[in-house]
């Protein structure tokens, strides 16, 4: 998995410096409306579709922040947030 991730603080760095944090699933379900099923979906279910996805990464060997990037899971390359592919 030798690819580059762009940290908003440190800039482009080796992917080995980061820890994957999963797909970005948007905001948590509202506690007022939450059901066991909706929480289970949010906590455990992922889309896992091939293509561009928004995902969380943690710069564990660097500045220590969590941030999101877009990555094409079929090419393992980071995609610019401005790219048309990132529009859901």
């Amino acid at each position, binding site marked *: 998995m030798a690819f580059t991730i762009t940290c908003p*603080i*440190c800039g482009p*760095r*080796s992917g080995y*410096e980061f820890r994957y944090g999963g797909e970005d699933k948007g905001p948590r379900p509202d506690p007022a409306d939450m059901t066991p099923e909706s929480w289970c979906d949010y906590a455990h279910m992922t889309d896992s579709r091939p293509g561009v996805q928004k995902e969380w990464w943690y*710069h*564990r*060997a*660097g*500045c*220590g*922040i969590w941030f999101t990037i877009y990555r094409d899971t079929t090419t393992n390359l980071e995609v610019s947030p401005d790219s048309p592919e990132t529009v859901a």
Partner: protein
Amino acid sequence: MKSDNRLRQSPVKLDGRPHRTQVRDHWPLVSEYADEGDGPWLVDLSHCHRIDFQGKPLGAMIPESLPEPEAPGDVRIQDMTMITRMGNVQGCLWCFGQAPANPIGFNGTDITEATLALAIAGRHTFAIAEKLSSLDLQSPGEALPRLYQGPFARVPCQIVVLDAVPGREMLLLSCSRGYGRDMVEAITNAGAEFHLRSAGEDRFMGMWETMTRGLS
């Protein structure tokens, strides 16, 4: 029970025979080693006080008498103190030489005892560094001094590149105290081909003063 005579202990012990030593603020330190050579040098600065501070906005945590690093990676120096900015809400104050431990009552966490601080200085400094880290420490696009955060000898470190003038190259390394022995071993082995030797604090302070004269 009196505790005034208890001493702090650096996480590392460098090779070489100390020529002059002293105790400052309960920290025993080597001012000069016998036969320090012409460089490059490895200097243990673990006794230098370092204070981590966090706040939003970060500038509100910094007294007006000190300069504020405005963006992550920025480093500001004033006399014997240095302020680095790691992120949007976190910075670190370093106090060198005889500078008081907390000169202006900084509201932060003293991390001196918890971390290791080393300096690599003199010619071939970056040749040694590039054997141990893939970070681009000599990027011409970055103004010096500059803070980098990333792996050095595979250890997450804060690295401050202070000077890159040939013969005056100097960088600071800081990481968790527990990595100290392995970090020194890695640097010593990487520097062997360049005749890296241990140097005392006086060597670093001499280069620091030369560098800060160039900044002013």
